[in-house]
């Protein structure tokens, strides 16, 4: 202990009394209360009785006694909003327990600690949210990747289908061009008609074979009933694919026997196309006529 003059010692004692509210208890090795004093009531400790177990009145001392030499329990909350630094030290007469007020210090530390931990918890929350967002972003990126892959495959497939479509279209154009050449060459009569027997298109050769003009065709005079009264049932020839001899009635009511066959019109399945050849005359004559 420093060699302090009496007034200083007295001042320190007074300061300690004012600021630290000292209180004490003296306890035997078997936990019985021997003596007590100071500002015990300010720590919420009251009703002490000599020779009773101190743990019955001061729960935080249970299990701590006797101490081997010395021990300190910082910031023990002894009552609501009251904290004490508790010092325990052993002497010949028993274990001394000294309580010094630590409320101000504890409250300051509590405020600082609260801010620190609140921030740490907020940081943990943000980290968790960040991880959640990262996971969601990863899943989204994976999904986009999958969909991009699917889209690429679809584009490639569509491009292939488009190319095939163009090829088919080109083949159709070539086929139509070839057929148009045949149609316009008039080497045989070609006629288009529907399931009701209406003739809506024919080449000159067919008109010529039956003695009709193109105006007759346009005005609807050329019908299946007019030209084939004997076999006026259109249905009977609709399915006829083989070339056969068919008798037709010309415009002047004379009869002409033609080799005739029909086929469905690919672009309009309800309609049919007929091919007629006058086998009684040489082809060169038909073509030239």
């Amino acid at each position, binding site marked *: 202990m420093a060699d302090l003059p009496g007034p200083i010692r007295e001042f320190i004692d007074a300061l300690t009394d004012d600021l630290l509210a000292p209180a004490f208890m003296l306890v035997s090795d078997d936990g019985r209360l021997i003596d007590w004093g100071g500002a015990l009531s300010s720590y919420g400790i009251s009703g002490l009785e000599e020779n009773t177990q101190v*743990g019955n009145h001061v*729960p*935080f001392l*249970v*299990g*701590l006694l006797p101490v081997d030499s010395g*021990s*300190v*329990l*910082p*910031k*023990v*909350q002894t009552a609501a909003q009251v*904290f004490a630094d508790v010092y325990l030290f052993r002497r010949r007469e028993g274990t001394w327990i000294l309580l010094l007020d*630590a409320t101000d210090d*504890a409250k300051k*530390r*509590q405020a600082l*600690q*609260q801010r620190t*931990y*609140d921030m*740490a*918890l907020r940081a*943990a929350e943000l980290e*968790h949210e960040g991880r959640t967002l990262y996971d969601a972003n990863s899943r989204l990126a994976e999904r986009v990747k999958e969909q991009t892959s699917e889209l690429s495959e679809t584009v490639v497939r569509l491009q292939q289908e488009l190319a095939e479509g163009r090829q088919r279209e080109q083949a159709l154009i070539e086929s139509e061009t070839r057929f148009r050449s045949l149609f316009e060459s008039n080497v045989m009569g070609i006629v288009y008609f529907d399931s009701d027997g209406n003739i809506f298109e024919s080449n000159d050769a067919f008109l010529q074979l039956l003695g009709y003009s193109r105006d007759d065709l346009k005005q609807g005079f050329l019908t299946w009933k007019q030209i084939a009264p004997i076999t006026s049932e259109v249905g009977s020839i609709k399915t006829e694919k083989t070339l056969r001899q068919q008798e037709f009635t010309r415009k002047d009511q004379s009869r002409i026997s033609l080799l005739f066959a029909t086929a469905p019109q690919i672009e309009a399945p309800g309609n049919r196309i007929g091919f007629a050849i006058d086998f009684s005359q040489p082809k060169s004559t038909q073509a030239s006529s």
Partner: protein
Amino acid sequence: MIQKKICMLGSFAVGKTSLVRRFVESIYTDKYHTTVGVKVDKKIVKVGEQETTLLLWDLEGSETEHDLRKSYLRGASGYLLVADGTRKDTLYHVLSLQSRAEETLGPVPFLLLLNKSDLTDMWEIDDRERSAIEQKKWKIIDTSAKTGQGVEDAFLSLTEKMMEKHNG
């Protein structure tokens, strides 16, 4: 009456104070209030035919074994290690706190509580970590101070273990 001291050990904000309040007063609040130093609560429980006064030492959060004061642990008959299931790091912290507690108290009974089991959508502790701990023969109880799930079971299970040891 027999008196037994139990220490609550774990990182800050894992729910030590909330668990004690739920067990002693059947109260829960969402607002977080940090604990400074230590607060001691009492509760009388009956295990079998034996009544016991539990002295629950709610210690301020400790991140490392060095933060944990040996003087607080002195005289404890058992302890509850508390981790927050939504913060995986708190599980690693209790592993080091357990070493410190065992070094100070010897082989006294303890349990590991994985608290905040009501927040399952934020849960970070997976089965692999759980089974790694179970291999150490530690008893784990999922708790929620908010709903009360597992709280009574945790304190009474530890009391039973302490009383088994007490009765020898």
